[in-house]
């Protein structure tokens, strides 16, 4: 085995794969587009709201109590406070608990970064008996000063105090000029809600802060009881196992499939015999396997990189355990060598791609089976079923990846057993494949079946 020749073969294999137009379009441009989109999206959203909106909101308030409360609730500082509260609630929901939300908030010091500056809304009170038709005209008429009319609020008479015998409180009518942004309308509605609630509470002599404190129940993470107590993850973390399992399968498929295609191409174009006059079959196989491995790792790096970029962009990077990426790489390599051996051997055995399909299908099924079992394994990562799966090659690495990314990871010794078994299986597969590779490369004729492949492996 000459390392120099293996490197040369690997280099050609890598370059041939990454300079292929289909590869560039399918694997690089798409994710790059996604990345640009995701990185740019929050900034685009901010940009559209970058200019501070200034304008007037007219109110017709027959109760006389909503307008003063609204004046407080519509001030820029109140709007900002409300936005922060909404954002925090959303982050808590994504993270699954208040602590996770807190972690997210660490990377997100200023909510205005996402939402832009709070609008400057001036409240104009109209008399209770104002003419509605005339006020509507005010909304659509060109603005007199530099403040443009943004909304007209007509509060119902029973909005603060219920009419006798009624269960529900009254609300309000909201009139807006054409082309009012949804954001401004929502700000006005949110302010109105706060203002009306405050007015209602005040009408019954209740303290607003007291009621807020009484109705707030923070959602704390549940704790999984075991030898080591851990907080149960929900929300975003629920998807992590599937993302990692998907990356693993995807990476392996890219490399192993391309390996098979390029081997079949070398065989069907008959370039193989010239190659074999320069390198041994083992050197050729080693070079090809390593070259495609580099391609797969490049693809994985791109996808993981995009994932990290997205999480960073949405300030959720705190949710990702960096160790998982390391294990993804380890498990990827083990799984890759196993399947690359299988696909390489198939590529060497057949005459053209069409014949490969019959042999590839069962191998693909084996690769997809754990993917189908991902849901039960992720739900109960420490069930007997999940533990057994994580010791049976070649599905063991994928099962273990899902378990490790789940909320209750397995003990370390199990991880290392999986790695050990996986390595042994990969070595065995490579050894078998090398034999089939050597025999198959120069065999032309009847398309082989699995029995033929086994006979070749025994022969060689």
């Amino acid at each position, binding site marked *: 085995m000459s390392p120099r020749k293996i490197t040369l073969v690997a280099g050609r294999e890598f370059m*041939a794969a990454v300079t292929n137009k289909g590869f560039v379009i399918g694997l690089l441009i798409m994710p790059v587009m996604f990345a640009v989109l995701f990185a740019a999206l929050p900034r685009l959203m901010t940009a559209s709201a970058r200019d501070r909106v200034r304008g007037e909101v007219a109110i017709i308030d027959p109760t006389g109590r909503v307008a003063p409360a609204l004046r407080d609730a519509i001030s820029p500082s109140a709007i900002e406070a409300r936005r922060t509260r909404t954002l925090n609630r959303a982050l808590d929901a994504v993270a699954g608990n208040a602590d996770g939300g807190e972690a997210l908030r660490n990377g997100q010091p200023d909510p205005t970064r996402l939402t832009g500056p709070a609008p400057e809304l001036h409240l104009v009170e109209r008399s209770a008996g104002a003419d509605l038709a005339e006020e509507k005209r005010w909304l659509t008429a060109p603005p007199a000063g530099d403040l443009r009319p943004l909304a007209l609020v007509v509060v119902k008479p029973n909005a603060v105090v219920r009419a006798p015998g009624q269960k529900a409180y009254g609300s309000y009518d909201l009139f807006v000029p054409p082309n009012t942004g949804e954001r401004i309308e929502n700000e006005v509605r949110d302010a109105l809600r706060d203002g009306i609630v405050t007015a209602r509470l005040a009408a019954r002599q209740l303290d607003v802060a007291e009621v807020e404190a009484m109705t707030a129940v923070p959602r704390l993470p549940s704790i999984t009881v075991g030898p080591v107590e851990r907080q149960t993850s929900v929300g975003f973390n629920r998807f992590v196992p599937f993302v990692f399992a998907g990356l693993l399968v995807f990476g392996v498929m890219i490399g192993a499939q391309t390996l098979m295609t390029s081997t079949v191409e070398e065989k069907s174009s008959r*370039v193989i015999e010239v190659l074999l006059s*320069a390198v041994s079959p083992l050197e050729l196989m080693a070079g090809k396997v390593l070259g495609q491995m580099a391609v797969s790792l490049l693809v994985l790096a791109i996808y993981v990189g995009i994932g990290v970029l997205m999480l960073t962009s949405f300030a959720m990077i705190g949710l990702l355990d960096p160790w998982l990426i390391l294990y993804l790489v380890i498990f990827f390599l083990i799984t890759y060598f196993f399947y690359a051996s299988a696909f390489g051997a198939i590529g060497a055995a057949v005459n053209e791609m069409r014949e490969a399909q019959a042999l590839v299908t069962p191998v693909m099924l084996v690769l997809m089976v754990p993917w189908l079992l991902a849901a039960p394994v992720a739900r109960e990562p420490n069930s007997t079923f999940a533990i057994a799966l994580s010791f049976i090659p070649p599905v063991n690495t994928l099962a273990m990846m899902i378990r490790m990314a789940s909320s209750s990871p397995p003990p370390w010794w199990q991880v290392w057993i999986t790695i050990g078994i996986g390595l042994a299986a990969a070595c065995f597969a490579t050894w078998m494949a090398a034999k089939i590779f050597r025999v198959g490369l120069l065999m032309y004729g009847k398309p082989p079946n699995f029995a033929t492949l086994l006979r070749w492996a025994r022969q060689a």
Partner: protein
Amino acid sequence: MNAIELRDVRKTFGAHVAVDGVSLTVPRGAVYGVIGPSGAGKTTCIRMIMSILFPDSGTLSVLGRASALEAKDRIGYLPEERGVYRKMRVGAFLTYLAQLKGVSRETADARVPDLLERVGLRGTERTPCDELSKGMLQRVQFVGAVLHEPELLILDEPFSGLDPVSVRLLREQVQRAHARGATILLSTHIMAYAEEMCDHVFMIHEGRKVLDQPMAGLRRQFDPRRILFEPLRAEAEVAGIAAMPDVSRLEAEPGGGYTITLVEGAEPSLAVARIAAVVPPARIEIARLRLEDVFIRIVAGGGGLDEAAAALRSRLQAGTAQEARA
């Protein structure tokens, strides 16, 4: 030391015996021709020499090693099954092959344009392989076989499917490699090429060696003792020739002219002078040794036009015609 040695090598594929107890010794610096009809076992022999196939029994050595695997970088090989990476550019493909043979990238890059020019493919370095014609690709592959200046050059049917100009260009390159000191082993089923290029021929038929001789010895042994004759005037009386003591037989050829077979021991050069004196010739020449005839005489035994010989001749010619079409 010999460049190639095969001792009693045998190879079977299932029930089919492809090579049956073949021995072959190629001395260094020789130009050896492996000839025989298609399917005779030439390519199997060459693949065993290249350690692409392994013999069931028998031993071999290549450039002093037990296997060509140990001397890969010193061997240039143009396989019968030819192929390129279709998407690669010609220059990159050749440089890659040379690098695999241990040549540095710089050296390979420097040699490629010159060699391409010598085989009539100047300026194709940047052309993707799949834009070249079949004949052009064959010349590209020939360049791939000689780019690393090998000590031993093994060419399996190097001229098949090529036009005469390309054949001449490649033959010049083979001679150039030979002049540099390389040992050449080439297989062909077109025996005329072997007659012109080789100093030694090795004939194989149905897996067995049937002839292994220097061309010089062959010429002596298989002297055709025939003179091709065309009289100046078509209606000339040729009975006088048939009556000459040197002449054993006179046959009219379908295309006009005659084939004169001499008696054993007759000196062809004297016979030519005597024949020309009897009937003025438009053309008169001593028939060249034809390997095809030698082959048929050996395989069919005797040399008469019996059925076996006729069948063999038609097989050989069918192969040649097929090549001409390709």
